[in-house]
């Protein structure tokens, strides 16, 4: 059974007004367990809408969304967080800047449990946090008591990734998560992302504007246009894809749209 299924999804914004726009018309998508899907496409192609639908920021006009065969449509965004982790474009969104690295790790560690009056930071977990932070190879394990607000964008994004995947999740959503970083940091974060995904065998949905990342990473590639997947290549087929192929389709689409 597919890990994530979107069935007959319609999304219409401003329904019944002059500004009515249909983003999805009977859109279907199945993502298998362990698949790492990269989604590319121009602005307005429906990539972000897709993520918002899955994460729970947006309700479809009609259709069904299933995670491991169970409908998640009636769950609020925070309830879906039990199963779905999300890393945003803005590195500030995944962490609490006024709290220390240690406190951020402790919060993440407690996800899915009650937040009662127990001590917030469990000292017995320090070694575990350190070993997790070591994987990032940024030396954050020696800065446990530094406030996250004092870290660079790249460090914060790496920490966001770790926090998001610290407790088991069924689906990881990457929302242009390297777009706000400089090219070198972006590269580091992408490699780190790939490493974490492989290690934990995470099913992943990644939206990116970087065609090279889409080609290099993951085992499935979707190119979206006007709410449809104009390219959907998996495994061997995907391996054959090159940036130039994508660029060609991309420019054809753009010409069509008159850009």
């Amino acid at each position, binding site marked *: 059974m597919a890990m994530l299924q979107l069935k007959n999804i319609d999304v219409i914004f401003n329904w019944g007004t002059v500004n009515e726009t249909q983003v999805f018309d009977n859109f279907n998508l199945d993502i298998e367990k362990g698949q790492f899907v990269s989604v590319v496409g121009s602005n307005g192609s429906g990539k972000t809408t897709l993520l918002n639908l899955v994460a729970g920021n947006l309700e479809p006009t009609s259709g069904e969304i299933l995670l491991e065969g169970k409908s998640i449509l009636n769950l609020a965004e925070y309830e879906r*967080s039990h199963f779905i982790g999300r890393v945003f474009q803005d590195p500030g969104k*995944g962490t609490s*800047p006024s709290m220390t690295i240690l406190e951020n790790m402790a919060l993440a560690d407690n996800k899915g449990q009650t*937040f009662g*009056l127990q001590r917030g*930071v469990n000292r017995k977990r320090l070694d575990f946090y350190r070993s997790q932070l070591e994987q990032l190879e940024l030396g954050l394990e020696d800065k446990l008591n530094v406030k996250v607000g004092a870290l660079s964008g790249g460090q914060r994004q790496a920490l966001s990734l770790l926090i998001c995947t610290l407790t088991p999740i069924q689906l990881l959503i990457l929302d242009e998560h390297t777009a706000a970083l400089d090219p070198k940091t972006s590269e580091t974060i992408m490699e780190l992302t790939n490493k974490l995904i492989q290690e934990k065998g995470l099913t992943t949905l990644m939206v990116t504007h970087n065609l090279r990342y889409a080609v290099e990473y993951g085992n499935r590639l979707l190119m979206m246009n006007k709410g449809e997947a104009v390219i959907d290549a998996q495994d061997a087929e995907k391996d054959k894809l090159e940036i130039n192929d994508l660029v060609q389709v991309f420019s054809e689409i753009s010409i069509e749209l008159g850009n």
Partner: protein
Amino acid sequence: MDVFIEISKGVLEQGFIYAIMALGVYISYHVLDFPDLSVDGTFPLGAAITAMLILGGVNPWLACLLAFIVGALAGLVTGLLHVKLKIRDLLSGILTMTALWSVNLSIAKTSLLSTYGAKTIFDSGIIMLLPESLASWRTLILVLILALFMKFLLDWYLTTKSGMLLRAVGDNPQLVTSLAKNPGYVKILGLAIGNGFAAFSGAILCQQQKFFDVNMGTGMIVMGLASVIIGMTVFKKLSIIKYTTMVVLGSILYKGAISLALNLGFNPNYLKLIMAVLFTLALVSNNFLDKKEGRGKVHGHVAIEEY
């Protein structure tokens, strides 16, 4: 010299009592990043409840506790207005504050109620164990202990799991969502605690001054904010002391400045004007210091260093 001691004692007594309210404002304004005006209503709410309870012979400590609980319920209302009915933060507070005016009048049944003769925490129970020679210091000693107790209680709470979630929601609500918790509920909890503190402070003031006045809440939010901001501006260099300590000290400084102005012969009619000027000075110097130190991140007008 005696006059000076008397004035200082008065300033400290008032400073510590209002510091508890300021700690409540610190929770809403600084930790939650929520400008909560309900405080103007919950402070006298605590006083009204206490006045009625102690006049009815209820243990004055129990009265304080009940005041805290009812204040927290009022904060809960503000939170529900904001989170459930999607009313803007400022307006939610104004609505609760306005409604509480009538609530307070209906509890006390009059706009000015003397509690003279009723037992208070200042003249009964544990405080009477102090030797007679310290009798004139009883009030100060008790409010000092109470303010410190509430400060340490808050310090402790903010390091618990629940408290850490509270700090996270003011900082980055999305993180709370990602932790599979409803950020709205966490905000409501924070507002309840903040207003519990305000009502508790009102309960103590009522017992100390031996009357309830329906107007006693007017300007509380300004006083609370001024204490928070003055404290943080003046002591921000001392990174070893906690923000909650700065708030308590800020409250005393604020009361000291007002007292100084009045003793220098300012017309009491200008009291509110002096309050506003002091507040402005604190805000401006805070922003000025931020700029000078090249601090980029300004959050709710106060740069974040610690929770």
